[in-house]
């Protein structure tokens, strides 16, 4: 209580700046006067009496200090003094201060942006209850692409047989269509979920109700729809009476029953559903019985105390059981558990990428710190005499160190604040201008990001403040005052500042090289052979309805003919699934003569696509030998297939593949053509085997039209959409350019190239300021010496080498070290960039040239200044 009173009074005194100086002075005076009178009364002479009174009172100065210390908060007061002094000193050299703040703002800003993204994508838990206990089931082999796990019947089996989960829920994340309500229409995509989905995730509705376990009562028993917050806001104007509104999804009626909370976007960070419907009401009700497909992604919560490993074993045992019970459909592939959120295994890729970028960004900050450290060290050297004087006048070294540290921290705080503000603005712009391919991910500057920025700022302030502090600690005032200003530190062969600059240049070279590597990777990727030509092609995805009297095959043919007759179309074809849009999976293929179609009898699991005649020509896939499928390959004709080169080689080695046979989808098919290999999921993959069937011999509702034309894309898109919706007014039609559809696959490399490009730019700027600072400082310190040299007849060459020789040598050594670092870091780079190769001669040459140019640019001005030295003027001024 007493201590608290005292603290409060001190804080109050401190903040109100109340000072009792006057009061103490008066009290001392009155005390000494009283004592003097007493002494006089005791018979001492007045002069002596006053002296004795003072002696008895003791030295007033320490008392005054004690008094002051007791009154306020001395530590804080000193700090304020330091800060005020630092601000004054910094104010007096604005150029230095601005360069310092700007440099640090770059470093901190870059880090805040990257950390913001890392935080949003990797660190922040999903907005569900108890996210640490939530897992996603996944097939054991590492696969890229979408997160599909099981068929619906298999999901039910897992749910009933497992002993390790307290709950399992599934969702099909690839449903969508045309949403109609009132007179409005909108293309949407959403999830169809099992009844316990929301319960398992612990999500509460913000309006109405969500899908609930009682909705699972057999096919088409629950035509209910839950809207996402964003769909509710954009399409329904956040209408609170939306509950009960009838809507149509495709041609199926649904009733809106509720709205999900604003913070809930499903469990995938990059793919936010617009709505949720019960799985029992998915329009393709077949798949509730079908064991072949794997449309469901399964989420589960572990029972307390159960490890993910044990669970994986339990699940794999069930998978093996199921494979025995259903040998024609269930593969028995073991399962494992992953964290949901980043499309299953893409998490590893994304994590590697982000952490790699984080590492490089931290290097930018380190380079900025090295830059600032040498700036501050140079300044401290210039202020050597001032500091020495203060030591001589009785300031403790500790006090001076604290002062210099305060200056460094003040600069770092200002720079950090500037960086944080810039980064916040940038992230805000990123959020607003987000392109669809990476999906929506809300990157925000939250407490964590702010804390990280503060921490980085403080640490970097301490880092570059330490260098001048160390200098002061070691300096001797006598030496400093004795020697002149021009030569206050003995020139060592290799000073700390040289080391700092060297390190800075090495880091900058590393970053510049990394950005070259990434740009090269990007260019190479854009030119990588894909096995098709996405340029200037449009694609239109739709599900062609199987209902009605006309067979699917004829509908498709009619639509294709209509598309081909759109004016300006040069080629058109259909394919069941366009490469690079996900959702492809292996289809078991059996050799001729197989009688038992269990999965362990299959010889290969290639991708299978159904196409129309003319697809290869339209897609730009070259036919290597044989023929394309044709309209004569009808359902009644002998079944045929076209395979890719890898398929042919894997199946039949060097033997000619044309005329060979294999069984797929219950039919024996003859190979009639071979096409070149292409990529299907990502650019880095080695070409997978694949076969193509004419759609007339294997029906699939999902169809994508591919169209090439000379007309402008938006014009073509409109014409395509018009033509196709004439056939199927209810179907959801997605028209876009093939390039846009592939943007998701290209996004990592794009992001890497632009991210590393920006970082390379930052690094180049840092290198320039570093070299420039050092060279300019060198020249200004040695002005007198250079003047004498010129007066004595030194040649241009010598003057230049004296002026900027050292920075240039450091540039060479630093760049070399940076290149070596880059080679050592190639594994890190490989995480970020497609086919990263820092030993690529173009890259090395580019980096060396860049650094040389930077060095030249940075040292040109100081060198010119050195050359322009006018000895007579110089001699007169100093």
């Amino acid at each position, binding site marked *: 209580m*007493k*201590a608290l009173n005292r603290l409060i009074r001190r804080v109050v005194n401190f903040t109100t700046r109340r000072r009792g100086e006057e009061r103490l002075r*008066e*009290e*001392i005076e*009155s005390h000494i006067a*009283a004592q003097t009178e007493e002494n006089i009364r005791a018979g001492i002479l007045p002069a002596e009496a006053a002296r004795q009174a003072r002696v008895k009172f003791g030295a007033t100065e320490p*008392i005054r200090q004690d008094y002051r210390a007791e009154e306020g908060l001395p530590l804080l007061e000193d700090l304020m003094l330091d800060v005020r002094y630092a601000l004054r000193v910094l104010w007096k050299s604005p150029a230095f201060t601005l360069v310092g703040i700007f440099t640090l703002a770059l470093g901190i800003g870059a880090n805040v942006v990257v950390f913001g993204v890392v935080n949003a994508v990797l660190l922040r838990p999903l907005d569900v209850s108890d996210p640490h206990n939530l897992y996603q089931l996944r097939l054991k082999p590492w696969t890229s692409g979408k997160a599909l796990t099981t068929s619906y019947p298999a999901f039910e089996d897992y749910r009933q047989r497992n002993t390790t989960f307290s709950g399992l829920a599934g969702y099909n994340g690839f449903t969508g269509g045309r949403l109609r309500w009132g007179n409005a229409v909108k293309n949407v995509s959403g999830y169809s979920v099992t009844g316990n989905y929301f319960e398992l995730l612990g999500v509460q509705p913000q309006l109405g109700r969500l899908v609930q376990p009682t909705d699972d009562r057999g096919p088409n028993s629950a035509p209910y729809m839950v809207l996402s917050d964003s769909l509710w806001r954009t399409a329904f104007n956040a209408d609170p009476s939306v509950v009960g509104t009838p809507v149509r999804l495709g041609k199926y009626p649904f009733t809106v029953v509720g709205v999900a909370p604003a913070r809930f976007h499903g469990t995938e960070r990059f793919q936010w559903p617009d709505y949720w419907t019960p799985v029992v009401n998915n329009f393709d009700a077949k798949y509730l019985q079908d064991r072949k497909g794997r449309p469901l992604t399964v989420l589960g919560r572990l029972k307390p105390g159960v490890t993910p490993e044990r669970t994986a074993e339990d699940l794999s045992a069930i998978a093996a059981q199921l494979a025995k019970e259903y040998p024609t459909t269930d593969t028995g592939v073991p399962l494992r558990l992953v964290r949901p959120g980043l499309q299953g295994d893409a998490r590893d890729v994304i994590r590697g990428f982000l952490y790699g970028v984080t590492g490089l960004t931290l290097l930018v900050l380190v380079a900025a710190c090295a830059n600032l450290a040498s700036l501050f060290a140079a300044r401290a050297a210039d202020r050597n005499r001032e500091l020495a004087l203060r030591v001589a006048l009785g300031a403790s070294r500790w006090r001076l160190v604290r002062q210099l540290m305060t200056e460094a921290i003040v600069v770092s705080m200002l720079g950090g604040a500037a960086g944080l503000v810039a980064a916040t603005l940038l992230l805000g712009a990123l959020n607003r201008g987000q392109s669809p391919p990476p999906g929506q991910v809300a990157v925000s500057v939250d407490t964590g990001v702010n804390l990280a920025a503060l921490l980085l700022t403080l640490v970097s302030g301490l880092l570059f403040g330490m260098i001048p502090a160390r200098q002061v600690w070691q300096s001797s005032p006598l030496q400093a005052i004795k020697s002149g200003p021009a030569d206050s530190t003995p020139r060592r062969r290799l000073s700390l500042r040289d080391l700092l600059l060297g390190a800075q240049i090495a880091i900058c070279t590393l970053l510049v090289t990394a950005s070259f590597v990434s740009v090269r990777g990007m260019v190479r990727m854009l030119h990588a052979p894909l096995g098709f030509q996405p340029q200037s092609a449009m694609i239109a995805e739709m599900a062609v309805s199987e209902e009605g009297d006309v067979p699917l095959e004829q509908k498709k043919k009619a639509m294709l003919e209509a598309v081909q007759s759109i004016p300006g179309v040069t080629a058109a074809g259909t394919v069941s699934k366009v490469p690079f849009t996900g959702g492809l999976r292996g289809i078991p293929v059996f050799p001729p003569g197989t009688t038992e179609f269990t999965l362990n009898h299959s010889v290969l699991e290639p991708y299978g696509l159904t196409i129309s005649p003319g697809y290869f020509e339209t897609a730009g896939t070259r036919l290597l030998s044989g023929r394309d499928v044709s309209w004569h390959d009808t359902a009644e004709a002998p079944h045929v297939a076209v395979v890719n080169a890898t398929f042919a080689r894997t199946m039949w080695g060097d033997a000619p593949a044309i005329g060979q046979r294999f069984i797929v989808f219950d039919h024996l098919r003859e190979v009639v053509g071979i096409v070149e290999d292409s990529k299907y999921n990502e650019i880095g993959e080695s070409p997978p085997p694949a076969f193509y069937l004419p759609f007339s011999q294997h029906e699939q509702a999902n169809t994508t039209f591919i169209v090439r034309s000379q007309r402008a894309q938006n014009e073509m898109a409109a014409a395509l959409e018009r033509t196709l919706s004439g056939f199927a007014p209810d179907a959801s039609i997605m028209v876009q350019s093939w390039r846009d559809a592939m943007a998701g696959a290209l996004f990592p490399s794009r992001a890497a190239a632009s991210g590393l490009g920006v970082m390379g730019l930052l690094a180049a700027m840092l290198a320039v300021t570093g070299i420039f600072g050092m060279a300019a400082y060198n020249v200004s310190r040695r002005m007198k010496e250079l003047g004498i040299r010129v007066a004595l007849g030194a040649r241009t060459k010598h003057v230049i080498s004296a002026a900027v020789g050292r920075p240039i040598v450091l540039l060479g050594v630093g760049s070399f070290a940076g290149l070596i670092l880059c080679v050592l870091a190639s594994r890190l780079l490989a995480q970020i960039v497609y086919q990263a190769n820092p030993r690529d001669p173009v890259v090395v040459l580019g980096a060396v040239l860049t650094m040389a140019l930077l060095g030249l640019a940075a040292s040109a001005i100081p060198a010119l200044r050195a050359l322009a030295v006018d000895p007579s003027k110089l001699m007169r001024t100093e």
Partner: protein
Amino acid sequence: MKQKTDVQQGTLALMVLKTLDVLGPLHGYGVARRIEQISGDLLSVNQGTLYPVLLRLEQEGSVASEWGPSENNRRARFYRLTPAGRKALQEEKRDWEQTAAIVARFFDVKAGELS
């Protein structure tokens, strides 16, 4: 002559409180004189150190102070004990007596009693 004992802050604060308790409101000089008299010149304080202690007590709320005229009509700052200070004094007094009693008992102990 014996070295004058260095008065510790806490002890000094206690003495100040007791002095104010016994004599009522006093100015700084008066407190110093009083302490000097009672401690029999053994505790002749570096008198000025009293003032930070007085300030501290005031900030703690144990004493309050105001300006007033001194005996010889000088302006002086008079300190008086607050109720909180009186309570603090009683507590401190109890603590001291306990400590003193324990120490005294140790000094009284004879060799035989310890075995």
